[in-house]
C-alpha cells in the first residue's frame, strides 16, 4: 500500500500488507470504500479493518493551527514599488511564475532574487541561500557578481556590512539539467537533500518549459489521439513537479520562482468560439490580452496555470508614436493583490521601477 508516501515509519503488519497489495487497495481506497467491499478485496476481518482505518485516519489528520498565529512571509524584490504592488514581495511557501519573451528580463529578475534572499531580514531578505536550477545555459555568474557589486546603489542608506556580499556565488547553488529525465530526478530527489543540508530560502527554475517543449511536442492544429496522450502525460508530470516544489516551499518556508517562456497569441473570432472558450478566457490569466501589442501566451497550458499561485509577466511595449520602448512588470493574478502594471527599467543595478 502507498501509506509510506504519507506517513513515515508506519508499522504495517506483513500479513495485512500483502493482503492489501493483492487486493490493490490504496490508502484512498481504505478511506473511501465500503467495509464490505474492503473485506471482499483483502480477506481481512472487519474488526481488523476498522481498527486500521481508525489508526490511519488519526495518523493522516492534517496539520492545523489557529489563524491568529499564521503570518504571511515575503521575499523582497529589491524595489519598494514592486514590493508594494505584490503586497510585500514574492510570497513564501507557494509557487510564483515569471513569464516573458526572451530578453524581457526574466533571468535578470531571477538572479536579482538570488541576491535578495541572502540579505538580512531587516532589508526584506531571508538571510538564506538560493538554488538556481537551469535548463538552458546555466547561471550567468558574471552578471550575478555585477548585480552584487551594485547592491550598495540599490540600498544607499543601508549599513555597508549588510549589503556587501563578497562572494555572491557562495550561497547560490547552481544545477544544470539539460533534459527532462535529469530535471525530474534533481527536483524529486536531490533538491530535498539540499534543503536538509543548508538553509534555502529560494528555488529558481529557469525555465520550466524548455525540456518539456523539446521532448513532448504536440501539434495544436491537428488534434491527434497521440497528441492528446502526450498532453495528458505532460499534464501529469507537471502536476507532480508542482506538487514536489509546493511541498518543499511549505515545509522549509522557501519562495519558489519559475521562469516560463511565451509564444505568440493569435487573436480569434470570439463570437464564433464562444464566451467559455479557453482562448477567450485565457486573456484574463495568461498575462496578455488582445489590446496588448504583440500579445503572447505562456507555455504549458491550463494544467500548469492551475498549479501556480501567482503569475507575473514582463512585457515589452513599443509606443509607435514616440518610438519609445518601455517595459512593464505585470501582476497577472495573485492571491494577494489585484492585477496591476508597473513601469520598470533594467540597468546595471538590475530591475527597478521607474
Amino acid at each position, binding site marked *: 500500500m502507498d501509506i509510506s508516501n504519507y506517513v513515515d515509519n508506519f508499522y504495517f503488519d506483513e500479513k495485512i500488507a500483502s493482503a492489501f497489495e493483492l487486493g490493490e487497495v490504496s490508502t484512498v481506497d481504505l478511506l473511501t470504500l465500503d467495509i464490505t467491499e474492503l473485506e471482499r478485496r483483502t480477506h481481512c476481518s472487519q474488526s481488523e479493518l476498522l481498527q486500521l482505518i*481508525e489508526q490511519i485516519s488519526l495518523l493522516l489528520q*492534517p496539520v492545523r493551527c489557529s489563524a491568529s498565529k499564521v*503570518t504571511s512571509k515575503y521575499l523582497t524584490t529589491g524595489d519598494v514599488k514592486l514590493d508594494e504592488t505584490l503586497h510585500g514581495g514574492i510570497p513564501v511557501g507557494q509557487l510564483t511564475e515569471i513569464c516573458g519573451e526572451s530578453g524581457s528580463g526574466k533571468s535578470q529578475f531571477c538572479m536579482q532574487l538570488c541576491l535578495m534572499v541572502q540579505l538580512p531580514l531587516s532589508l526584506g531578505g531571508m538571510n538564506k541561500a538560493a538554488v538556481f536550477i537551469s535548463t538552458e545555459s546555466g547561471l550567468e555568474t558574471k552578471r550575478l557578481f555585477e548585480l552584487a557589486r551594485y547592491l550598495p546603489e540599490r540600498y544607499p542608506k543601508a549599513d555597508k556590512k549588510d549589503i556587501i556580499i563578497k562572494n555572491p556565488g557562495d550561497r547560490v547553488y547552481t544545477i544544470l539539467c539539460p533534459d527532462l529525465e535529469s530535471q525530474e530526478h534533481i527536483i524529486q530527489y536531490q533538491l530535498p537533500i539540499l534543503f536538509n543540508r543548508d538553509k534555502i530560502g529560494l528555488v529558481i527554475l529557469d525555465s520550466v518549459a524548455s525540456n518539456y517543449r523539446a521532448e513532448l511536442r504536440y501539434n495544436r492544429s491537428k488534434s491527434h489521439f497521440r497528441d492528446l*496522450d502526450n498532453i495528458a502525460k505532460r499534464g501529469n508530470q507537471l502536476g*507532480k513537479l508542482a*506538487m514536489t516544489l509546493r511541498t518543499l516551499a511549505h515545509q522549509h518556508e522557501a519562495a519558489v520562482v519559475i521562469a516560463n517562456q511565451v509564444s505568440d497569441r493569435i487573436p480569434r473570432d470570439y463570437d464564433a468560439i464562444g*464566451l467559455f472558450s479557453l482562448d477567450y478566457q485565457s486573456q484574463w490569466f495568461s498575462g496578455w490580452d488582445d489590446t496588448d501589442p504583440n500579445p503572447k501566451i505562456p507555455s504549458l497550458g491550463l494544467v500548469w496555470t*492551475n498549479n501556480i499561485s501567482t503569475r507575473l509577466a514582463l512585457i515589452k511595449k513599443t509606443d509607435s508614436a514616440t518610438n519609445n520602448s518601455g517595459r512593464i512588470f505585470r501582476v497577472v493574478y495573485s492571491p494577494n493583490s489585484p492585477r496591476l502594471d508597473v513601469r520598470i527599467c533594467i540597468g546595471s543595478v538590475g530591475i527597478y521601477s521607474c
Partner: protein
Amino acid sequence: MLSSQHRLVTQPAIRAYEAFSAPGFGFNSKLLDDAFGGSGLKRGYISEVCGAPGMGKTSLALQITANALLSGSRVIWVETCQPIPMERLRQLLDNHVPSSQDEEEKCDTDELLNLLDVVYAPNLVNILAFLRNFDQEKHLKEIGLLIIDNLSMPIQLAYPTSPEDYAYLRLRRNTSKKSSLSDSSQKENTLTLNKENEFSSKDDSNFAFHNSSTKTTINRRKKAIGTISSLLSKITSSCYVAIFVTTQMTSKVVSGIGAKLIPLLSTNWLDNLSYRLILYSRHSTEESKDGQSRPSHQLLRYAFMAKQPPAHSAESELAFQLTSTGIQDYQSIPTNSSQRRKRSILECES
C-alpha cells in the same frame, strides 16, 4: 469498536430550525447574496465556486470567511495547494471592525482570528481523514463555515488523467454514437464518424487489453469523489455547517471550436451539491454613454449559477468587482446573449 461512520448522529430539531433561520454569511454583494437565497451562504448547504485562475475564487472565500468571523461563528479553512492569504483577511476584518479607538481595533481583529482554524491538507488522504473525523471537532457547535480552498487539485493529483482514460472514453463514446446513428437524418455525420472509427480501432485493439484496469481508474476517482461528497453532505446535515468549496477548471476539446473551459469535477460530485457558481470574465458589451468612469474589465468578474435548489432562480449573469478592499457590487446585465451563452455552457458540461 464502532467507526464514526456507523455512529448514529442525532440533533435536536430546534438546532436545525435555528441554523436554517439564521442569516447566512454574506458576500458583500447583493447580487451574489440573492443568488444564494437572500442573505448569502446558508448553513446546511454545500456550495461550490468554480473558475479559472485569477477569477476570484479565493477572494469570494475570504469575503465570506471575514463575514462569518464578524458574525461570531467559528470557521475552518482547509488549504490544499496555496496558503490562506492572511494579510488580505486581516485587511477585510480591519475594514469592518467598528473603529472606536485605533489600539482596540487591532486587538479585535486578533480576537476574531482566534475563531479561525487553518488546516493544511495537501493530499486527498489528509482531506478524507479530516472529513471523516469532523464530528470529533472540539468546538463543533460553534462552527458555522467550512472552506476547502481548492478541492480539485488533490483529487487530480491522486487520480491523474491517464492516456488510457482517453482511449476508454473514446471507445465508450463511439459505441454510444453508433447505436444512435440508426436515425437516417444523421447521414451526414456517418461519413466522418466512420473515418474516426477506423482510426481509433487500431489503438483500440491493444487498448482492449487494458480495458478492465482503466475502467477501475476512472471508477476509483468517481468513488473517491462520491465519498467526499457524501462526507460533506453528512457534515452539513448533522452539524449545520455551511460548506464552501473552490474548484478549478479544465479544458475539453470541442470539434470546430477548440478548447472549452469546463469544471474539473462533474457527474456524481453534483449529487449533493446545492449551489454551483461558475466564474468568468468578459469584455463589457455596453459603451459608456454618460462618460461615467467604469471599472476596467480587468477587475470586473461575472458569475452564473450552474446549479441551485429548485425553488431558487438567480439572475442569469451576476457581476461583481474585485477590489483591494474585497468584493463589491456591480450592476447586473441580463442580456439575451448572456442567456444564450449560459445555455451553451450547460450543454457543454453534460
